[in-house]
């Protein structure tokens, strides 16, 4: 159809130009919305549990006989936010190397997931933790004690990585 009327006001019908019936219609819609079910999640009481695809705080995978990490330093190298610090040391185990010191500064981390992507050992993965609160800058630097998480808790993410990585 060719639109010959060039302004919106000219295209409206008489009743539409009166505004009021249309406004009444709109108000009917909003009134009905008031009784619809709500979407709000009462957060601290109702916690949201993400799926495996969620990129939360990066953690180190801990197996029964120790961490997987071989302290190659690739994650530290790739991290765009320079959040990771790794110091390697030797060990008697098969892997020969392990991180003596492994720190992630959570105030720098941007949850990009590059560390996870680059790791040759699948030793660092993104977890589901998202409510991270710190009261000082020092506290935000997580050492190995906080980073090591047992593999059984990371199955969702490992499964996700196996499928999509």
């Amino acid at each position, binding site marked *: 159809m060719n639109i010959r009327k060039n302004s919106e006001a000219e295209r409206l019908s008489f009743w539409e130009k009166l505004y009021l019936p249309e*406004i009444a219609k709109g108000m009917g819609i909003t*009134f009905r*919305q*008031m009784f619809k079910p*709500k979407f709000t999640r009462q957060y601290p009481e109702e916690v949201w549990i993400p799926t495996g695809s969620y990129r939360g705080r990066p953690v180190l995978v801990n197996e029964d006989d120790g961490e997987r990490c071989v302290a190659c330093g690739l994650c530290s190298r790739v991290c765009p936010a320079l959040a990771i610090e790794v110091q390697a040391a030797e060990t008697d185990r098969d892997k020969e190397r392990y991180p003596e010191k492994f720190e992630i500064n959570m105030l720098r981390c941007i949850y990009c997931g590059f560390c996870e992507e680059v790791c040759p050992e699948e030793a660092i993965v993104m977890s589901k933790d998202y409510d991270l609160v710190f009261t000082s800058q020092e506290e935000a630097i997580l050492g190995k004690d906080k980073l090591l998480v047992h593999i059984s808790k990371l199955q969702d993410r490992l499964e996700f990585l196996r499928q999509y990585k």
Partner: protein
Amino acid sequence: MDIIWILLEALIKAVVILNLILLFAAALGVWAERKVSAWIQNRIGPNRVGPFGLLQPFADVFKLFMKEDLIPKAADKTFHRIAPIITLGIAISVYAVIPFADDVKIGDKIYQMGIAPDLNIGILFVLALTSVGVYGITLAGWSSNNKYSLLGGLRSSAQMISYELSMGLALVGVLMIAGSLSLNEIVSKQDVIWRWNVIFQPLGFILFLVSSFAETNRTPFDLPEAEPELVGGYNTEYSGMKFGMFFLAEYANMATSSAIIVLLYFGGWQLPFPADWLGLQQGSIALAVAQFINFMLKIAILVFFFIWVRWTVPRFRYDQLMNLGWKVLLPLALLNVLLTAVGIWLLK
């Protein structure tokens, strides 16, 4: 001696009414606004502070008290300070003439339920005050020395001029029917539901309603503070409790407009049915209480309506607003006066 008692009585009434209306109604208004907007958007709304989040507005105001009060360097300090006081002060002072219930007789003394409800130019007083209220906003906009604030202030005055006119003219119909400017008189003429002015004055009512939306700067006519175009409009440069005063004034204004609409078109404090159906005596305290509750309920419904409209209708464009005011509302208001005159003349 007498004059002291009269002054004392007025003072007590003023304190009671201001506390009740301002603190309570404004706080409830803020709460209702947040709740209704939440419901319309499928949310729950504030529910943490107090039961059903009822104490939320107090928490908000407390927060505003704690905030730093910033005044821009280039602002006109005096007027910057005065503007919110004017706005809030005017919004409150309208309550001086609003009657809350019928006169109560205790012993042989008659008490009026309101500060000065029998003022014989009541409605003129209201109109005069509401138009002074715009000075607060315009001054706020001008004294902030900020282009957005100034635009907001200017818009507000332009809007006031174009809507005050049709508002006043829409009123004339009611005044012709009541034959008086006193609010008490206008109310006492509408003693049952089928004698409410809204039935005789449907057109006048709609005109008055639309103009009061413009008058209170509520959406769809909230151009003075149009956030997307003007940052915050006239209150861009305000913070802390000064901003809080504008905020409270908006809700006080809304309650005022609702009260005036109720008084003029919905029978004010008059019950919708004859008072003897409840078995209450004229002039008794029980009846006054019933009327007061009735009046407050009507106001609450209208305030809900104001909020409901705000979360439904988008903002008008500035030229649409002006067109509506001058080309539509004004002629219709004149027509309404004419129709009322003809009606009264025919029925005489």
